[in-house]
């Protein structure tokens, strides 16, 4: 079953990123990645008896069979979007009856090295799904240093690295002058940093939530030859960004870049509000739960994040934080250049 949503997203982003080229092999890999992830997800759910457990009962009843209901409803959302289940004959979604309407898809044939590489990472992450659903235990949570390798590898995959690159390019950080300062918030281990550093000559302050994360980010930049006085690491929670930056005595900040970071925060609104206190200019790039981004949502969640938000949730956080401005895209990536 062809799944072109992610490849289409890359094309769309290439427009907002000023026509940045997406290599054809990455485009092809993007389609294959979605097919592989779909197969792995449905296979895992099938093997754990998920479809049998939910067949013929309402989503409300079915949710009681699982310890992690947030994950259950997210999976139901994804399965409905992909056409594997439907909920029928009820007054509303919660009262209807779940029906499996599609069997396990045929095993996909990945032909690109990028998709084959991604398959092994996604397969490993999704192997923790049954325990997460049934027991509420996320055994691959990145609180454990060794699991951080999985998060780093997720963003090291060519498809997601390209996605991140196009997003950062679209935000327009190259406008920040070389003597300026950018504060960068990203997904855990600083996956956005090499891209931010290549896009801008400004000083970059990377805020990471643990020493381990900062260490991984620092070593990655060293290995890539990008570690220099241009970048400084600060450890702290993004919800306290204003205080952290004050304590770091960095001086005025020209822009705060928030890339794939909001779903890693338990208080995304506070994160944005704090960002707006640090700088008048806040640049946000946040994937939302969609046909193109669901593998990222599931994988990140199993590694410890929240489920990807919906665009209206982000609108609410942005408005509550007193930010407004230009929204370049709202779905499947919320991409906005905001000001206080």
């Amino acid at each position, binding site marked *: 079953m062809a799944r072109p949503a992610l490849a289409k997203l890359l094309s769309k982003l290439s427009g907002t990123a000023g026509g940045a080229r997406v290599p054809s092999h990455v485009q092809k890999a993007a389609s294959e990645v979605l097919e592989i992830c779909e197969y792995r997800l449905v296979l895992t759910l099938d093997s754990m008896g998920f479809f049998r457990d939910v067949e013929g009962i309402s989503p409300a009843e079915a949710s009681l069979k699982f310890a992690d209901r947030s994950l259950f409803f997210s999976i139901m959302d994804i399965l409905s979007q992909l056409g594997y289940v439907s909920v029928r004959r009820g007054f509303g979604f919660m009262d209807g009856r779940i029906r499996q309407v599609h069997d396990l898809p045929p095993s996909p044939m990945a032909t690109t090295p990028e998709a084959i*590489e991604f398959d*092994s*990472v996604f397969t*490993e992450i999704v192997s923790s799904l049954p325990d997460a659903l049934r027991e509420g235990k996320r055994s691959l949570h990145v609180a454990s*240093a*060794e699991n*951080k*390798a*999985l998060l*780093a*590898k997720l963003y*090291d995959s060519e498809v997601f690295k390209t996605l991140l690159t196009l997003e950062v390019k679209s935000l327009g950080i190259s406008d920040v002058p070389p003597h300026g300062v950018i504060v960068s918030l990203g997904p855990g281990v600083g996956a956005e940093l090499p891209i931010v550093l290549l896009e801008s000559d400004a000083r970059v302050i990377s805020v990471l939530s643990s*020493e*381990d994360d*900062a*260490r*991984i980010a*620092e*070593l*990655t930049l*060293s*290995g*890539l*030859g990008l570690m220099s006085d241009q970048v400084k*690491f600060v*450890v702290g929670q993004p919800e306290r960004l204003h205080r952290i930056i004050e304590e770091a005595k960095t001086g005025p900040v020209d822009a705060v870049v928030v890339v794939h970071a909001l779903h890693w925060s338990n208080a995304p609104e506070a994160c944005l509000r704090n960002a707006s206190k640090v700088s008048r200019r806040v640049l946000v790039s946040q994937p939302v739960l969609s046909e193109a981004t669901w593998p990222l949502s599931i994988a990140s969640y199993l590694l410890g994040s929240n489920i990807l938000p919906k665009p209206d949730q982000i609108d609410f956080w942005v408005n509550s934080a007193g930010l407004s401005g230009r929204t370049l895209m709202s779905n499947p990536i919320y991409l906005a250049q905001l000001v206080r």
Partner: protein
Amino acid sequence: MSAPGAREITCPICGQRHRPPLSRGWNFVPCSQDHGIVVFVDSGGNVREVHGASLSKASSGLVLEEGKLHLVPKWINVDRIRAVIEGKASPTEADRAGISLLLNLGILKRRT
């Protein structure tokens, strides 16, 4: 996150002294062609563990976790790391960063 101040580390294998830039977590410090030092710095910036690591094919002090090789970041050349830990190549600055990163990610371990 570099730990404040450089500390003198004495190689447990040859006694040579080094003042390497150490960061929190696991650090790999090359000492000579046939061995290096593995240093663990805790979150308070204190050196907690110092181990010698032989770099030779016969008795390498560091071992790659073969089941985790798919998690090695693309910028790290696994063959090159293997050559370094087996003493077939001298570590460069990028190798030092790569080895330290793999130690921190649990993909490279000290042979105990």
